[in-house]
């Protein structure tokens, strides 16, 4: 999939908010990455790191103050409103809370028919058939199409949100915390659905999440964001098994692992996320970093390719000198046979 041109290219993207009486808030500050066709790129980071602002700019819901977003080679900020609206069907978004993003007065059928009509995806007489097909795709029945959002459970509502995104036959879907509001067993169903749909239709995902075990499961590559900048980006295995940036290491060490026998080797971070208006020269992570020195405060580190067996890119002056971080996750034991057997009987593989 690497041979083809990327579906999305984000170049030096910035969103600064002017503040009265203080310096601008740099919500997103010089972020670059691209997403290949059929690829899932996860964007991780804690609240306030700018991931939602970034998503809004990619969805052309907010204008960048610097840099550009190119979708299939087209710079979104240069498009006229009419052209942009025509292009919008190709990039869709799924939100965290499916209930607040569905119109409570519209039946599911109406919700799904609207984008089909708006973008003239199918002729009017074919709409009902297409809606039925969309419902089937996400595991709902045609009869359920006549119901209203409040009649569904959280997991089912998220399926409706997914079906609505699918209606436009998109090539990129931005998933903004799509499973954070769901229970464990329902979460697994929705994650499987997202993966099945990707295999079936071949679109790309930008998957925004703070849940690192979900990210590990679903993504091909991971980008880690801290205070408006990318600190590390690379293939999922590399980032999880050999995180290079001190922030990525701290983040991974903080995940509670569902195994009481895994050793707890936690890297405690100093302090908190600084006030967004604070003017930080150099590396934004320096005030909380155990390895920071004069260079880190003076100079902004740029993302550089780590080379060698790990092909991550990392923005840290000292990544070469840091000890190899090992979360100690590799010693996972085999699951007892009776458990594996019951689990297999619960979720038979689809034919």
């Amino acid at each position, binding site marked *: 999939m690497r041979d083809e041109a990327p579906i999305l290219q984000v170049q030096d993207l910035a969103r600064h908010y002017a503040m009265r009486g203080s310096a601008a808030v740099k919500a997103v500050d010089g972020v670059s990455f691209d997403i290949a066709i059929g690829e899932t790129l996860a964007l991780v980071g804690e609240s306030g790191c700018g991931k939602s602002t970034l998503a809004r700019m990619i969805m052309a819901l907010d204008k960048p103050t610097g840099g550009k977003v190119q979708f299939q080679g087209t710079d979104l900020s240069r498009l006229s409103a009419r052209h942009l609206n025509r292009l919008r069907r190709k990039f869709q978004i799924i939100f965290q809370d499916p209930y607040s993003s569905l119109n409570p007065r519209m039946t599911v059928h109406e919700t799904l028919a609207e984008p089909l009509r708006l973008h003239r995806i199918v002729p009017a007489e074919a709409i009902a058939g297409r809606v039925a097909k969309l419902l089937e795709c996400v595991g709902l029945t045609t009869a359920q199409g006549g119901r209203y959002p409040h009649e569904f459970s959280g997991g089912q509502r998220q399926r409706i949100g997914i079906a609505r995104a699918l209606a436009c036959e998109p090539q990129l879907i931005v998933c903004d915390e799509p499973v954070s509001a769901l229970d464990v067993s329902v979460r697994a169903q929705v994650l499987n659905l997202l993966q099945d749909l990707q295999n079936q239709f071949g679109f790309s995902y930008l998957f925004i999440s703070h849940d690192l075990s979900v990210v590990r499961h679903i993504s091909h590559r991971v980008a880690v964001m801290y205070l408006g900048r990318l600190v590390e980006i690379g293939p999922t295995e590399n980032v999880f098994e050999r995180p290079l940036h001190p922030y990525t290491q701290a983040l991974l060490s903080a995940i*509670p692992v569902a195994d009481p026998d895994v050793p707890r080797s936690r890297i405690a971070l100093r302090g908190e996320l600084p006030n967004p208006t604070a003017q930080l020269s150099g590396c934004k992570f320096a005030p909380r970093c155990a390895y920071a020195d004069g260079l880190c405060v003076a100079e902004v580190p740029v993302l550089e390719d780590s080379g060698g067996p790990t092909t991550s890119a990392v923005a840290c002056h000292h990544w070469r000198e840091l000890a190899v971080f090992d979360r100690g996750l590799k010693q996972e034991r085999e699951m007892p046979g009776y458990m594996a057997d*019951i689990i297999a009987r619960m*979720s038979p593989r689809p034919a």
Partner: protein
Amino acid sequence: MNMVDPKPTAAIMAAESAAMASEAAPAEEPLLRVNRLRTSIATERGRMTVVNDVSFEVRAGRTLCIVGESGCGKSITSLSVMRLLPKPQGRIDAGNITLLGRDLTTLTEHQMHAVRGHEVSIVFQEPMTALNPVYTIGDQITEALLAHERCGRHEARSRVIAALREVGIPDPERRIDTFPHELSGGMRQRVVIAMALICRPKLLIADEPTTALDVTVQAQILELFRQLRDSHRMGLMLITHDLGVVAEMADDVMVMYAGRVVESGPVASIFNNPQHPYTIGLLGSLPKITERQGRLSIIPGTVPNLMAPPSGCCFHPRCPLSTERCVADAPPLAVVRGPHRSACWLAPLD
């Protein structure tokens, strides 16, 4: 944890006393003993039993984690203990809640005022709703302190500052005069914890205390809970849906499904040797942090409607092992091995 069995039989009682004798269990009374609690909520369509025949204990210096998915009754269990059920819909229909030797179900609302915050405190998921936006955090913690203890203004202020320092709030002398909106989510949750702990309750109930927080902040708050539990021998009842948090924090685990306890026991045996198909399904549906799997395992179906619960075992419609007996009769929570109990006719499953 020694559960009181819903349907004790001679064999189970014997097994239990044998287990008790062989364990180096502390002989002291548990802080909290909940015995066959049943709680219902009135809805438009009639009364719904949301906690059914639930029994458990919490001991000093120990952590009990209650796990389960939305609607399993874990929060209503904690609200029942606090006697904070929604009024007038919520009602405790049966059972006892014995805290420090006193049955809370028999206390008047006035008597409960002296218990809450003093003997048992609760911390909820969303710190902003637990704080009043128009008072400084210092005023609010002071109010919690003065509700139970007499002390002068200066002493109160210095105790509040000490409490803020204890929960890891930097620069407490200055922060004491700030308003909730001036603090981050993690700091607000620390303030709520400081407020809950100012009178040194013996038992702390924390209902999804870190669900709204980022992972690095969650790690700090969990570490704080651990320290407080160990330094004050506080009992901790932690309600969560996150099995990672359970593995990290729990001494004992209780798994709830559709208002009932389906499995309980020490954390290591619950994770390594689970004895209820629901627990096994939950563990199976977790994405692994260690590897990228193809597909996640799932639990088929959805949680039952508590207005019309299924016959027999409430998990039988989703269970791959279900038999005729499971459809007909509800299995009691019975000893599998030592302190490990399961409400499954087919246990032991291994």
